[in-house]
């Protein structure tokens, strides 16, 4: 008897809890309106959290973000992945999506410019940071982590910077390739590589800022890393998506982006 009661109770809880016991306001807005689904490049991880919080507070729009590599998102978006806004780590992917007619026309925008740093653990010799890129050629350094230059913009920029600094030939045998700039960072963080050429946005990210030391690589050494975005053709709430785009290009968002290690377009 008791067992039956308990069982009934459990079934009730499992089946009706979301509606009957919900009480307060519904946690999820009805699908579609008031919601923006963002596919974002992994280097935005820290910055976008703050941006979304600010945007949500002032616009009453719910923003859900998925982080990943831009190339992966590009492939998924070619196949109709359910996102409204795409924030790429470069400007090429949004352009190609536009060329294939998968975006809302004339909505491409440049929202940030990536910055490159040489990063090393707090416990490594002081001269690594002082010497900048030359330290990658230092004999005490056996591994230099970069993002894979075949598909990661930060990897391409790192290679260009090494070339411009005239150490590419000496550093090439030491290079190890992370699948993304975040993984390159992981290689250095774990001590497996002594130095890494990574994104400033990662170096200043909460939780990492005290683990290592870094020096910025002069922007003159590598091609400008503009990060572009676009709104997808199948965006459900186009007005909210456009609102988010406008916010990203506004002064408040630009200040936050700077704080999280990006330059902003036009500077």
């Amino acid at each position: 008897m008791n067992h039956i009661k308990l069982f009934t109770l459990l079934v009730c809880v499992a089946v009706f809890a979301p509606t009957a016991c919900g009480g307060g306001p519904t946690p999820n807005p009805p699908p579609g309106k008031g919601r923006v689904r963002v596919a974002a490049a992994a280097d935005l991880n820290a910055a976008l959290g703050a941006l979304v919080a600010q945007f949500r507070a002032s616009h009453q729009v719910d923003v859900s973000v998925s982080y990943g590599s831009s190339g992966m998102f590009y492939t998924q978006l070619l196949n109709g992945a359910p996102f409204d806004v795409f924030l790429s780590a470069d400007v090429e992917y949004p352009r190609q999506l536009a060329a294939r007619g998968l975006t809302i026309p004339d909505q491409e925008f440049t929202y940030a410019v990536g910055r490159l740093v040489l990063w090393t653990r707090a416990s490594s010799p002081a001269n690594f940071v002082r010497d900048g890129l030359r330290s990658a050629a230092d004999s005490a350094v056996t591994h230099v982590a970069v993002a894979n230059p075949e598909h990661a913009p930060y990897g391409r920029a790192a290679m260009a910077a090494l070339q411009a600094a005239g150490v590419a030939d000496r550093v090439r045998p030491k290079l190890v390739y992370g699948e993304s700039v975040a993984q390159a960072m992981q290689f250095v963080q774990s001590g497996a590589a002594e130095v890494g050429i990574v994104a400033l946005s990662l170096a200043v990210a909460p939780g990492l800022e005290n683990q290592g030391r870094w020096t910025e690589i002069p922007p003159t050494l590598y091609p400008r890393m503009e990060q572009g975005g676009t709104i997808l053709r199948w965006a459900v709430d186009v007005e909210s998506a456009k609102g988010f785009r406008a916010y990203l290009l506004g002064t408040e968002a630009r200040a936050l982006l700077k704080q999280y290690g990006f330059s902003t377009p036009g500077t």
Partner: protein
Amino acid sequence: MDWAALWLSVRLATTTTLVLLAIGIPIAYWIVFSTRRWKFLVEAVVALPLVLPPTVLGFYVLMAIGPLSPLGRAYSSLVGHGLPFTFEGLLIASVLYSLPFAVQPFSAEFASVDRRLLEASFSLGVSRLTTFRRVVLPLSVRGLVTGVVLSFAHTLGEFGVVLMVGGNLPGVTRTVSISIYDSVQSLDYAAASRTSLLLLMLSFIILASTYALQRSVWIRARR
């Protein structure tokens, strides 16, 4: 076509399988025949790689073999270079990753050997080791073959672990699955498809010929 990556994967899978054969058989034997009460703990640890996400496993392996861990430091002072981003490092990760795929079929087969045969052997004064070699092993061929093939196939297709500890070095740690992933990331779908197709065919041939072989072994045993 990335032949270097394919060849590396085949080498890695072969070496991993050999290591697993060497350490998997004693572990499986111990799991089956030990009378320790806490052996379920060992069984659980062996099965962990089935549950853990490969990237998590890979990250822990990277931490464990890196220069910040005692193990990593001991290795690099012995050999002169560290384990991360080397074939040996990849081998350690692969052995851990494929451990359950060898140990579980082995132990299942050992456990199914009729205990009366073992007791008969013991009562004739034959040692445990000889009994294992001449009674248990010959009766466990199927399980051994299954374990070997599964370990090989599992290592051949391994991705997350290699991604985490490898560093994507051509000819050293860029395995075939990483190479395919790179092609997809670089939007070179044609190259990705070619390599994938080759991997698919190779895997199918290996699995099909194993099952064919097993079948004939089985039929002969029945007769």
